[in-house]
């Protein structure tokens, strides 16, 4: 599949959503709401449940099932209070030594006046620094769209996985096409140029692995995901916190391609 075909697959309305993965992956769940600051953002579905035998905190971006649900969840574009709710539950997980599992599926953070008034930039920025220092393991899976800073705000993890046709991008290919070519119709070209596929993420060191999609046998697929994530948590939970944080730091520290020369004559 081309990058654009994957983008379309990642956005398909019949693709399983965050809530579907929450139901498929975690049992004996209790959903928790609110950021304790301003409000409750239904675009982020979060709580405590069991991954196999292990209690975990799950945080999933949910695009919504039908039109009414999608409107309520502003199409999976979280508000600042959504990111603050996620952070509150991550801090709670840290207190009780529970690992955190984030499921990412968003076009990007909510883009609107209310978001700006309530500090969308700050909300994301705080998640980045807090996740960098969170003293419990974090796993993130991009299950559909990984849209820019709004996805990264749940993506500062010890390991990141991509679903086979999930995409992860610094800007939506649509937005990129509008800026570069002043033509949103050139989204196919933009999707190629931006390198947004799961394979690209592995090659840049942005993701550790790719999870095969089998939505026809969704329960079985979730079972395989559970095995993968449980195995990782087994390793990460046994690690001293100091080493866990040092490796999380290094995981992001090494990403970057640039030129370096000593001569600075002009």
């Amino acid at each position: 599949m081309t990058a654009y075909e994957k983008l379309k697959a990642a956005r398909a309305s019949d693709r399983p959503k965050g809530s579907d993965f929450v139901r498929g992956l975690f049992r004996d769940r209790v959903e928790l709401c609110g950021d304790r600051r301003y409000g409750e953002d239904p675009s982020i579905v979060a709580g405590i449940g069991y991954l196999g035998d292990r209690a975990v905190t799950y945080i999933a971006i949910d695009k919504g099932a039908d039109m009414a649900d999608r409107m309520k969840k502003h199409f999976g574009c979280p508000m600042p209070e959504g990111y603050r709710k996620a952070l509150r539950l991550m801090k709670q997980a840290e207190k009780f030594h529970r690992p955190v599992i984030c499921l990412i599926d968003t076009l990007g953070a909510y883009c609107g006046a209310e978001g700006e008034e309530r500090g969308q930039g700050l909300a994301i920025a705080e998640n980045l620094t807090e996740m960098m220092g969170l003293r419990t393991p974090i796993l993130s899976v991009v299950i559909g769209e990984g849209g820019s800073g709004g996805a990264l705000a749940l993506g500062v993890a010890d390991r990141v996985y991509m679903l086979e046709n999930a995409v992860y991008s610094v800007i939506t290919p649509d937005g990129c096409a509008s800026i570069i070519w002043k033509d949103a119709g050139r989204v196919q070209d933009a999707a190629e140029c931006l390198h947004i596929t799961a394979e690209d993420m592995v090659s840049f060191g942005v993701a550790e692995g790719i999870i095969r999609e089998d939505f026809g046998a969704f329960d079985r697929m979730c079972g395989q995901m559970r095995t993968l994530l449980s195995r990782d948590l087994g390793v990460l939970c046994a690690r001293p916190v100091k080493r866990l944080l040092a490796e999380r730091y290094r995981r992001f520290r090494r990403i970057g391609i640039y030129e370096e020369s000593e001569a600075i004559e002009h």
Partner: protein
Amino acid sequence: MRNPFRHLPQGRPFGNEEYELTCPSCRTVHRRSELLTSGFFCPSCGAMLRIPARDRIRLLADEGSFAELNAGISSLDFLGFPGYREKIDKARAATGERSAVVTGVMRVEGQPCAVYAMDARFIMASMGAAVGEKITRLFEYATKMRLPVLGVTCSGGARMQEGIVSLMQMAKCSGAVRRHGDNGLLYMVLLTDPTTGGVTASIAMQGDIILAEPGALVGFAGRRVIEQTTGATLPPDFQTSEFLQNHGFVDMLLPRAEQKKTIGLLLRQHGKEAAV
């Protein structure tokens, strides 16, 4: 206090080369020498102009105190993104810089600090791998040397021509900011026009103290994008420094004439002698 400036290579301290800036308000072209005298307000119409990074540092630093770090890092077109190579070459030729940020150490009113200043003339000071690496190294250096950091931000956001690698710079820098803070060190931000997108959603909002130039545009999503997607009519002061302060996101509006004195005072309050 240890001398943070020892063993530093002496980089190009300040751009002495002449450049010109066009006032976006009245379109008059001014030479650098005129602008240094006017404090980068348009001598013709009084509009506030964006200050190139090296001169921004010059206006804040005690004379002769700035030493540059990691000047040799520059951007690469590693994705072969259409037009990017040309954009880099053009920006380098126009500014004499190798990347969109200048980093180093300086003294302000006698107080030592690490500093980064972003340069809007260089591809809108968007944050790619070169900018991310330089800022990360600066925070790591400041952590090692136990120096506070002053960041002067202005940016169009992440550099899309570097794809996902540019997005990851937000996380990379955030890690270095976090480590610096965990060591009890001060990070101060001065928001300048325009600070937007991924930079707002990372380093610009992570300061212990956030200062802003009056009238600067500071926001996450672009005004036009918000108007187009939501159909909302936005107030004229939307996403200005004043708007941010009214909503509780900025400590203080700091006009250019007062910056050096106030930043120097804040550095002194957090310096070694403050604890005595």
